[in-house]
């Protein structure tokens, strides 16, 4: 007679045979086992025909409705990205002296080789993307300064946030040299405006040429110049720009630029033209936003502009930047009265770029801070009065 343990093993073997559709009695090794276990196996075979019970239809329907309501009432699942793996400690064993190199070394060396190859590929890609492949130098007379362009001897040169104005007193009619730096993809990396004959190699972005300004408190909105009649019907007004407290994301942890005194003492001409992006009235002071810069319009001129002052009209501003960085606007002309309001947030490409660049996820955040605010103090009219100190955080290429 087999022991209980042996019987159990043989029974379980016969059950396995039964589940595979084979004869369960193949597991029996003796007649005694067959006598003992045969009825048990027979019970299992009979159990397949035992009654099965069903949930009643009414209960099923009610339960189904209840469960569906319960499921739909649950908050949706937020799929979390997998947590970044903790940084692995460096393979100390690789640096131990007299280490016995075995298969682990092979694995580590292979990993290191893969890392090197990956780093090489990344470096090549970065070089292709960011190393300037062309430098175009244009020398001539500065004829016009626009919001995002300058005109030198009849040639229009696009500028952007990375434009570096080395000249402190940028004046129309002044001889300048302009270096336009592009990468292989013909993407504009930087525009450097410098005195003719200057050492251009020293003017690369990242080597700050213009002292940055820290944000200054907004000056009192005082009309400084009598309105000048223009050829258009719109009245000319004087506006004093105010530093723009741009709602930069708090996550932008770029260090603030070092405060330096405003260097220029001679007024520099400023001319800009753009769509009024926003009109804000605060304490009887009307502020218009053009090219992301806020300009305070004195109440008298607001009255003169009347209902025509609204989002979407195109204003042309002329003025001079003072030594303290503020811009004295001597003429505001309504260029286009057809208000075409931009959608909230603006469809300005620069805005989008800023949002992207200021994003907390922007890997360039905090990089290239030396490039911040370049050119904002030199009368291009975009960021007068140091407004760009907040606007341009982290926009440098980090080179």
């Amino acid at each position, binding site marked *: 007679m087999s022991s209980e343990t042996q019987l159990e093993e043989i029974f379980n073997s016969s059950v396995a045979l039964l589940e595979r559709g084979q004869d369960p009695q193949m597991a029996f090794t003796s007649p005694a086992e067959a006598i003992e276990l045969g009825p*048990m196996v027979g019970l299992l075979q009979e159990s397949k*025909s035992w*009654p099965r019970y069903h949930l009643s239809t009414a*209960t099923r329907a009610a339960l189904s409705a209840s469960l569906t309501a319960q499921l739909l009432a649950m908050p949706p699942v937020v799929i979390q990205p997998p947590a970044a793996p903790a940084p692995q400690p460096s393979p100390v064993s690789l640096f131990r002296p007299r280490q016995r190199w075995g298969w682990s070394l092979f694995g580590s060396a292979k990993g290191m080789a893969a890392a090197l190859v990956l780093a090489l590929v990344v470096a090549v890609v970065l070089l292709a993307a960011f190393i300037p492949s062309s430098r175009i130098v244009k020398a001539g007379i500065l004829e016009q300064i626009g919001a995002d362009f300058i005109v030198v001897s009849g040639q229009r040169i696009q500028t952007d946030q990375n434009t570096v104005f080395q000249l402190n007193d940028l004046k129309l009619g002044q001889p300048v040299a302009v270096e336009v730096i592009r990468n292989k993809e013909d993407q504009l990396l930087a525009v450097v405006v410098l005195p003719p004959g200057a050492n251009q190699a020293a003017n690369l972005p990242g080597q700050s040429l213009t002292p940055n300004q820290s944000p200054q408190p907004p000056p009192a909105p005082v009309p400084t110049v009598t309105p000048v009649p223009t050829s258009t019907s719109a009245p000319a007004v004087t506006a004093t720009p105010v530093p723009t407290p741009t709602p930069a994301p708090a996550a932008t942890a770029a260090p603030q630029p070092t405060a330096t005194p405003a260097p220029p003492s001679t007024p520099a001409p400023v001319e800009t033209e753009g769509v009024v992006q926003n009109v804000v009235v605060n304490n009887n002071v009307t502020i218009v936003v053009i090219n992301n810069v806020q300009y305070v319009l004195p109440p008298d001129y607001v009255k003169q502009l009347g209902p025509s002052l609204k989002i979407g009209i195109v204003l042309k501003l002329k003025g001079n930047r003072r030594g303290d960085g503020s811009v004295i606007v001597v003429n505001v002309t309504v260029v286009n009265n057809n208000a075409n309001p931009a959608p909230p947030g603006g469809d300005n490409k620069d805005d989008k770029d800023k949002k992207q660049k200021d994003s907390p996820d922007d890997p360039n955040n905090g990089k290239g801070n030396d490039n911040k605010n370049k050119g904002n103090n030199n009368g291009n009219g975009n960021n007068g009065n140091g407004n760009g100190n907040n606007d341009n955080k982290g926009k440098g290429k980090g080179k």
Partner: protein
Amino acid sequence: MQLNDAELVARLQRRDPEAVGVLMEQYADRLYNYAYYHSGDHFQAEDIVSETFTRIIEKIDGYVVRDVPFKAWVFRIAHNLLVDHFRLITKQKTVSLEVVDFDNGPIATPSSDWGAADGGAMAEQYADREELHQAIATLPEDQRTVFILRFFEGVELEQVADSLEKSLAAIKSLQYRAVRNLRRALDEMSDRDLANPVNSQSDLV
């Protein structure tokens, strides 16, 4: 509509209402059958099924397919509810855990379409359905659970082990003893009067 467990879980986690129907279709009768054979009471079985499905929906977001098979997870919930249910009844001492009141019969008062879908030869062989239930009810709870899951629901050994959170060897042992004891109980029932089935239980453990 038939879905494999992974698809079913994914759709439930996406709050797809149709997935509830699939879940019910695939598990309602199995859970009910399991609960009914375990408890011998239609009302209790319905309560167990309802509560099991409610818990499935509640916990579906936390279920990870790779941790435990869905079927095992479902039956684990049902089993835990049954255990809790029986513990409660034991405390209240209203109904014996191991014995169904066969004088009245668990199916004596079906309110709708309860009942066996396919009465088999085995049920007829043992005179009536109550006799079969009585024999199953004589099994200790763990043996009864393993027997029902293995041979009524066709759940694999590994999944039964997952459901009951026991080792595979323990499940094999329970399976053997359950079948052995059930065979003996049925043989005894066919040979003698079934006046006091409770007393026969102590001999089977």
